[in-house]
């Protein structure tokens, strides 16, 4: 029963991993580049909302979340401008390194804002619990789950139902052809960064909110977790990132009931299993033809 309980917790919390994974995978899908500053921007967004929350006392929680999402969206655009826009496509390592610089920069800004201290962050319904037979579930985890799913559905609708979404997918598949069809590469890329930033900001806010704390320790941790989810899900695959996020959450919490120190090793093992058995990820397709 302990295990079942833990796995349910894991799946619920795993949605935030999924959101971070989607952020990485979205940018990778469109630009075929890695944005290592993404998770840091998500947490920085949450910190921006924290500052707002501290400044205007008793801001309602949904508004705090929106501020976080908006701030992270803006940061996403800034990352695009500083790390991608002006660096030639031929130098993928330069963009990678630039995002590392951005990661360090954002991490340090967060450290300065918080003075390196853990900060109280508003929780959603801090005392609500839902008892279901022997199971005991935190209502705010269910909220996290619901909000994440809603955000993912919104994203999918955006990608498949709007002009901007079609442009994004076109650029992801055939950048040159898309340009010839009059799609602005620059604008589409920027939009992708903003979209992923908004998702990340939401995830950052929910991670902080479910712990009721924010800390400058989070960015690096979340970057690693996001990369793991992205790889297991398959590069550029949004459904893959969702399933992988839930899977990683469930495995973490499940293993935790046995040993905390083995937890991270088991996640690493999970990567190896996937890399060997299914190198393209859960839903990913390998590009075999050149």
């Amino acid at each position: 029963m302990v295990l079942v309980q833990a796995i349910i917790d894991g799946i619920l919390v795993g949605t935030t991993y999924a959101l971070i994974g989607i952020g990485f995978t979205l940018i990778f899908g469109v630009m075929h580049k890695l944005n290592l500053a993404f998770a840091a921007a998500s947490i920085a967004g949450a910190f921006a909302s924290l500052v707002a929350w501290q400044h205007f006392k008793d801001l309602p929680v949904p508004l705090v979340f929106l501020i976080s999402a908006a701030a992270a969206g803006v940061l996403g655009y800034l990352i695009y401008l500083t790390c991608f826009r002006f660096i030639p496509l031929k130098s993928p390592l330069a963009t990678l390194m630039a995002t590392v610089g951005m990661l360090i920069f954002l991490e340090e800004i967060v450290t300065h804002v918080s003075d390196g201290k853990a900060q109280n962050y508003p929780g959603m319904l801090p005392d609500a619990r839902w008892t279901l037979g022997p199971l005991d579930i935190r209502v705010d985890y269910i909220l996290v789950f619901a909000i994440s799913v809603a955000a993912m559905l919104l994203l999918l609708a955006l990608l498949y139902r709007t002009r901007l979404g079609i442009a994004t997918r076109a650029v992801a598949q055939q950048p040159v052809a898309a340009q010839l069809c009059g799609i602005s590469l620059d604008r589409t890329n920027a939009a992708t960064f903003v979209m992923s930033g908004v998702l990340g900001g939401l995830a950052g806010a929910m991670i902080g909110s479910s712990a009721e704390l924010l800390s400058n320790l989070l960015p690096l941790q979340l970057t690693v977790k996001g990369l793991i989810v992205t790889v297991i899900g398959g590069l550029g695959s949004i459904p893959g990132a969702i399933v992988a996020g839930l899977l990683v959450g469930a495995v973490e919490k499940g293993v935790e009931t046995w040993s905390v120190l083995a937890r991270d090793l088991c996640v690493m093992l999970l990567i190896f299993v996937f890399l060997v058995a299914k190198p393209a990820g859960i839903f990913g397709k390998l590009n075999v033809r050149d």
Partner: protein
Amino acid sequence: MKKSALFLGACALALAGFAAAPASSQQRVIKIAGFGAKTGPVRSFGVNSEAAMRAAAAEINAKGGIKLADGKMAKVEVTFDDDRCQAEDGINLVRRYASSDVLVAVGPTCSNVAEPLFGILQKKVSDEKDSGLRFPIFTDVAVKAGLAQISEWAFRNTPNEPLLYDALFKYLQAKRPELKTIMGGKEGDFAHSKAGWDAVMKVAAPKYGMNIVGEVEWKLTDTTFTTQVREMKAKNPDVIAIAAHPFTLCGVVKEMARQGVKPKLIIGLTSSSSMETMEGCARQVEGAIIPTTFAPVNPEAKRVAGLIAKQKGSADLHSTAAWENVIILKSVIEAAKIDGKPETLAADRRKVRDALAALKETQGLLGVTKRTEDREAIKPFVFVTAKGGNWVVSYDPTKPN
């Protein structure tokens, strides 16, 4: 080519600036260099230590300064550098001090900096062959047990955790005999937190009749603790001891509140008796008890806390140690009768070291601190309890009631 020239230019400029940095001094000064983490996760420690050192220096200088061997007075000059909690940074900083006119250093924040730092010092002063640095360091924060034994140039004024927790459990046995069972929680991937439970509390509790019913662990950067807290709930101990930084300490007590885990007592790790914990989770830690080597319990302690606050730092068990260190160094330097001239620098450092080693006790803010043979401190302590968003003294051994 132009851009690379720009870079070369910047490098040259930096070099030139560096070469010009050591300024000439007209007045006699004694330089005490502070260093610690001012960036990264433990930034607040460095900020507070710096404030405390500056406050102490201001106080000494206001009273005329430090008396040298020739009877002249010298001003104290305190500097503070950031080591980013990185071993190599700390080593390079201390090498820089040792090759400049700094007399003695106070620091560092992190044990993982202190360990290698003490390692590069000369191990035994009698060993002429040992090429380690001959430079005294008087540590204020790095708390890991037994570090000063690495070198005879290393001194510490840090809490001795085994003694503190021994006293705490002894006190609990006498005053709260209804507490029979204890469960521990620790950050398994952080040496100090891990040792705080494994080597300190876990050892002390059974000595005073408390029964260990279980232990859980988590990691430094975890944000969810549902599994661990459920285990606590299942074991239902009287006491829960949490050896962790404020970030996960707060995460755990918040989860405990959510799951309705209400132990009769929560015990925290010494460094958690800070305002950070209160900013993070004042409501949930209400009633928790922590042994600490500082609390504003007497007029002098209150006055110093005010002075440190004026320098934009907060007074806690670590930063007040930095204050004490500078004050102790003043009297040590005066007792050592140093000349304070550039040509006597090496001899002066040795004199300061010997005088520090000769100390049997020092005056601290909470009373007399005993110095041990292996250059560690046994500091007076109090127990503080979280109450209404503040840490209040619940027991002071010097004032038995």
